[in-house]
């Protein structure tokens, strides 16, 4: 088995099937991009809701976050695959179970799951800005919205960027869960290849492709973290010269 890894013929065969891997990679990238957008939108909405003063909204946000953070993604995805079609059938009054497309299934899976984590990132980011910042803004006459825009959000953004990049990274890796429900993603195609040929090359190529997506994200997260830690240095004198 292990010698097979060094067998050039097997590698050649594997590279001949690059189309399959490409197809899977494309699906993974699609799920990643749309999933990330969904997760960000959900994260911003629920993150902001949990910092409002309205109790009911806080509770709704809490339930969402706790539910998705404390149940495994695999279970959630299996539910979308097996349970949701039946529920949708009843809801829509269709004659057959209504299956989600592979893309939609994937997007729901990672989007809802990571949306919960991103909501927490955003909540902590907003809460990290001291109350005094709002007070200073109000004492100058800024409305809450203006205070957010000019003063709070720029500070929040700096705090949340590193964990957000980390979430994007985890989201990419978690798309591989879709392989379990024939999601048509990179892992699914790689696993198919290995099952059909018996050649482990499939997994290695799969790893390399994930790495190509993930490594830049991890590097970005580290860079952002370093930046966030640094005390900002004085700005270089710009064109404005005050006599």
């Amino acid at each position, binding site marked *: 088995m292990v010698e097979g890894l060094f067998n050039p013929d097997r590698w050649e065969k594997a590279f001949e099937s690059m189309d399959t891997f490409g197809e899977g990679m494309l699906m993974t990238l699609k799920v990643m991009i749309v999933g990330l957008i969904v997760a960000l939108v959900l994260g911003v909405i629920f993150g902001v809701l949990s910092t409002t003063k309205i109790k009911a909204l806080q509770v709704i946000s809490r339930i969402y976050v706790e539910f998705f953070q404390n149940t495994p993604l695999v279970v959630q995805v299996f539910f979308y695959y097996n349970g949701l079609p039946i529920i949708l059938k009843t809801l829509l009054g269709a004659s057959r179970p209504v299956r989600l497309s592979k893309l939609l299934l994937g997007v729901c899976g990672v989007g809802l799951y990571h949306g919960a984590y991103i909501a927490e990132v955003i909540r902590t980011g907003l809460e990290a800005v*001291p109350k005094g*910042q709002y*007070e200073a803004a*109000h004492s*100058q*006459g*800024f409305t809450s919205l203006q205070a957010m825009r000019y003063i709070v959000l*720029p500070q929040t953004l700096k705090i949340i960027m590193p964990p957000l990049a980390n979430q994007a990274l985890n989201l990419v890796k978690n798309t591989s869960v879709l392989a379990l429900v024939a999601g048509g993603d990179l892992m699914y195609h790689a696993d198919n290849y290995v099952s059909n040929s018996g050649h482990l090359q499939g997994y290695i190529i799969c790893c390399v492709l994930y790495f190509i997506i993930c490594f830049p994200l991890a590097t970005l997260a580290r860079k952002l973290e370093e930046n966030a830690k640094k005390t900002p240095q004085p700005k270089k004198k710009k064109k404005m010269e005050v006599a």
Partner: protein
Amino acid sequence: MIKIVDLNKYFGDLHVLKNINLEVKEGEKLVIIGPSGSGKSTLIRCINHLEEPTAGEVYIADTLVTKKNKLEMAKKYSSMVFQQFNLYPNMTVLENLTLAPIKLQHMSKEAAKEQAMIYLKRVGLENKADQYPQNLSGGQQQRVAIARALCTKQPIILFDEPTSALDPEMVQEVLDVMIELSKENITMICVTHEMGFARQVADRVIFMDDGQIVEEGTPEHFFDNPENDRTKLFFSKILR
């Protein structure tokens, strides 16, 4: 300039301000002293409605301050200097000073910068314009905060324990700026423990205890012959 009528404030069950009545004339320098927990910070924060009064009214220039107009009123009449400075850390010193004039008072960028540099010079920090607040000492940050309050040109400045968070050796540089400022026709209300400052600057001192104004008078009155027992006790402790 400021008129406070039957002001009451509760935090939950805690009655922190009890029937406060106070008038402050235009250009007056008022110093509020008293033990911690006596409600002096809450009182000053009620003036610009950073704290919503539970009952009673605050008038500034004969206009009732309400939940609705408080931001307008602040923009027009009052600025504030905080114990913790509360400079905006995402902006340079210059940006801290020009934000409100540009965004709220629609001053041109050039004019706002020019004005900011004038005020920075006044607090002795014109060479720090491009620094970020985190790189300044506490005393310097507070002087920037005072310059920021000046840039918006309101006739009232509220000082909420401006030197309490400073290292001892930095207190005087901030007080010096405030003393210099007191020569102008700005209405200054200052919560502080700095009695030397009060003596030098205040037209009137009020002493608060347990949510009430216990005694008021000139600084000399307080130093020479305070009447109330609580005032005497307080002074015997802080004047060593």
